[in-house]
């Protein structure tokens, strides 16, 4: 059922106004107060000095995606705000907090139904030495949310720890001044919310992927910077060092993919992270990993495409490339995290599967996960079989690509006596010697394909949330980052009395077809939901015969996020809110 007790807040500002810092502080403060939260980011194209917006949502339960509309909007200024208007849908009860001193809001904003709360943010900031409007604004929001001064102190100490004492005390003073702008005695917006007592984490999706990689045993990363994947690399660089691993910044993505193939050949679980343009450059290297049976993991943090596309905003449009990109028959794995917390598990699983099956694994995260930050329950360690089968104590002739019942051939790691072989992207025989003979090609193609198809991937291939009803009225079939939004939409449909099943697919290739058929069996109406223009997932499922001919598709491109109300509207034909 739908969980209430949540509030959505947007903070916007032009370059240097500190919208992102404000969002980070408020997120941390709400976490300190015992709540859950989600902060997604939207940025303009500028390197520095551009406009930015943070989309916050808070609740007394874990959140998995954005709401339909925003309840509060803190506008630090109105410069270039038109760029964000589409991303900040409002409702009749929405309130916009701003300062008349900063100028007139544009017609796109005044034309909406929301009420304005005019406050003297600028003047108040001026009363504090070093005081800034964004801090006064956070103070206002903090007071409305019922956060205490002590909580704000903790949040500031933690968030601005590297900024020095002067900045911290100025920020605190400005926040307190902002808090005083809210009449005392106002009922806090979190008045009836439950306060969590257990441990929680403040983690971004890119950090979650990084953590999953480390848990999976990755100790070498080579990568080239690219938005929105770079902050995963920046998190991995120092943390790999701490546990004896290495991150190498490569000259381009062609280098990074081949570096990780070389490192994995050396026996070390290896990964790279990139976004669409980088994945395009890596495809030949991914094929090399598949052909030479060298385990690698590629995390692709998707952004709007094609070409350079929309680097700072989210879309699930690289599915086709991840599935079909490498030339030749190149069986590999494609997985997608279902949210920020799940990025830990899915990335770890991807690394483990790559190691176990000696193949390439592509993880499809995206900007809405990667650059978002959430307050979540700690993600427990999952026991997984991550070991690569290696050849030891070699007696007699070593055959690197020897045929085995499960298709997995023990791999000799350099340094192993009598295991010398040459890994090859050329087709080869069992020994590894290049061969263009039909028999060798057939045998090795079958081996590389069967080892993936014969594996039992267990229950983690998808998250399935079903009602008690034997047959669901509606079945929502989705993948990756939009799973959270779909789940929330399903909750609302259940509120309306429908029986709804959600199947959120984590393992996209190879798709466990029998399990998919079981999950879908009997559903009266199937909707396939995804965040791209051309319905790539829907067509993939159709091509496999995984969904019936009358299944329908909800595919919409970025950069606007999918919202739960769209799911409800699409299923019932009714307008939401």
């Amino acid at each position, binding site marked *: 059922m739908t969980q209430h007790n949540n509030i959505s807040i947007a903070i916007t500002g032009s370059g240097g106004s500190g919208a992102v810092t404000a969002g980070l502080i408020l997120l941390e403060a709400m976490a300190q107060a015992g709540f859950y939260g989600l902060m997604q980011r939207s940025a303009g194209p500028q390197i520095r000095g551009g406009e930015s917006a943070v989309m916050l949502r808070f609740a007394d339960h874990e959140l998995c995606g954005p709401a339909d509309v925003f309840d509060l909007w803190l506008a630090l200024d109105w410069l270039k705000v038109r760029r964000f208007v589409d991303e900040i849908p409002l409702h009749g009860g929405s309130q916009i907090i701003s300062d008349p001193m900063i100028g007139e809001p544009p017609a796109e904003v005044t034309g909406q139904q929301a009420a304005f709360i005019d406050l003297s943010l600028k003047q108040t900031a001026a009363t504090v030495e070093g005081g800034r409007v964004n801090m006064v604004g956070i103070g206002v929001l903090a007071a409305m949310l019922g956060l205490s001064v002590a909580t704000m102190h903790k949040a500031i100490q933690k968030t601005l720890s590297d900024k020095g004492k002067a900045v911290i005390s100025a920020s605190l003073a400005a926040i307190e001044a902002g808090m005083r702008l809210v009449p005392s005695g106002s009922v806090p917006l979190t008045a009836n919310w439950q306060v969590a007592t257990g441990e929680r984490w403040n983690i971004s999706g890119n950090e979650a992927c990084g953590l999953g990689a480390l848990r999976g045993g990755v100790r070498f990363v080579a990568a080239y910077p690219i938005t929105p994947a770079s902050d995963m690399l920046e998190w991995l660089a120092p943390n790999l060092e701490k546990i004896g691993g290495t991150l190498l910044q490569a000259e381009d993505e062609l280098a990074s993919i081949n570096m990780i193939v070389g490192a994995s050949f050396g026996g070390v679980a290896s990964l790279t992270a990139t976004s669409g343009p980088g994945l395009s450059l890596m495809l030949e290297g991914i094929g*090399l990993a598949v052909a030479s049976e060298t385990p690698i993991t590629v995390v692709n943090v998707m952004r709007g495409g094609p070409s350079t596309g929309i680097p700072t905003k989210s879309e699930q449009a690289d599915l086709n490339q991840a599935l079909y990109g490498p030339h030749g028959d190149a069986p590999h794995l494609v997985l997608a995290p279902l949210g920020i917390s799940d990025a830990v598990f899915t990335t770890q699983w991807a690394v483990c599967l790559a190691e176990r099956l000696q193949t390439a694994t592509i993880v499809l995260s995206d900007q809405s996960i990667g650059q978002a930050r959430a307050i979540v329950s700690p993600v427990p360690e999952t026991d997984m079989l991550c070991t690569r089968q290696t050849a030891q104590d070699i007696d007699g002739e070593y055959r690197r690509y020897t045929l085995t019942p499960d298709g997995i051939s023990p791999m000799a790691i*350099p340094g192993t006596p009598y295991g010398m072989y040459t890994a090859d992207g050329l087709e080869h025989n069992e020994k590894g010697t290049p061969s263009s003979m039909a028999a060798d090609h057939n045998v090795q193609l079958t081996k590389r394909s069967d080892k993936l198809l014969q594996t039992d991937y267990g229950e983690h291939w998808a998250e399935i949330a079903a009602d008690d009803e034997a047959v669901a009225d509606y079945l929502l079939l989705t993948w990756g980052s939009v799973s959270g939004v779909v789940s929330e939409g399903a909750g609302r449909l259940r509120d309306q009395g429908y029986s709804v099943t959600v199947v959120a697919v984590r393992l996209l290739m190879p798709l466990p077809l029998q399990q998919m058929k079981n999950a879908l069996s009997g559903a009266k109406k199937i909707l396939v939901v995804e965040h791209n223009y051309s319905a790539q997932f829907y067509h993939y499922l159709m091509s496999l015969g995984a969904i019936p001919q009358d299944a329908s598709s909800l595919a919409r491109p970025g950069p606007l996020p999918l919202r739960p109300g769209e799911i409800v509207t699409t299923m019932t034909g009714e307008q939401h809110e």
Partner: protein
Amino acid sequence: MSESDAVLIKPKDYKTSVKPIWCPGCGDFAVLSAITKALAWMKLAKEEVALISGIGCSSRLPAYVDSYGFHGIHGRVLPLAAGLKVVRPELTVIAAGGDGDGYSIGGNHFMHACRRNIDMTYIVMDNRVYGMTKGQASPTTAADWDKSKLTPHGTGVPPFQPLSIALAAGAGFIARGFSGDPNQMSKLIVEAIEYPGFALIEVLSPCPTFRPEQKEWKHQVRQAEDIPLHDPVQAAEWLAADDGMSSGLIYHRAHPVWQALHEVGSTLADIEQEFRI
């Protein structure tokens, strides 16, 4: 010491039974022999050596050496070798390939490998032609060579100067060998392996099939006497004046070697602490 290390290994013991695909008279045979001779002379255990290559005639070499090997994709030999060496610094890593693989499709990696200075040896068998694709001009082909149907009037492009570029990009070990002088080449390979950092050996390795005129190289190549140089400015002048037919160790200078830094001592649980509220 491993078992296979215990007995003295002869050069021929480093050869596999795989028959090279090279044409009779190809200069790459001599490079293969020079490598196995150098490995035997250094008494390197087979399993502690890795030969890495890209695509092209000369890139077939790893399959013919009984060490670990990786025959990767066109142009990516240096990143492939770098990844291996970074995680397995105790291995002897030798990258090998041709002029097209290394200087054209892999040109970017070539420059960055020179400046990154990971401890490995890179042997480029330069025959100034694409042999595997049947005789097209390569980056080191003279501008007026008009024997390829692809460039019937010649490329019109001055040839790539690998050694000058390596010097400018920061390489500290720059040598030129000749397949007609395998003893010198073996010696250069030993010196390159012993050099701590990225060591480039450009080998003049004739292609009798598509560049039969290169048979004349044996009359043109000479051992230079005024080298090695240790000053980069002098080396740049020397290289600019050279006709490309002087062999030997040309430039030798110590540079900081890229190495992975480890703090160690932390656990994953320590790292996870940072996420706690």
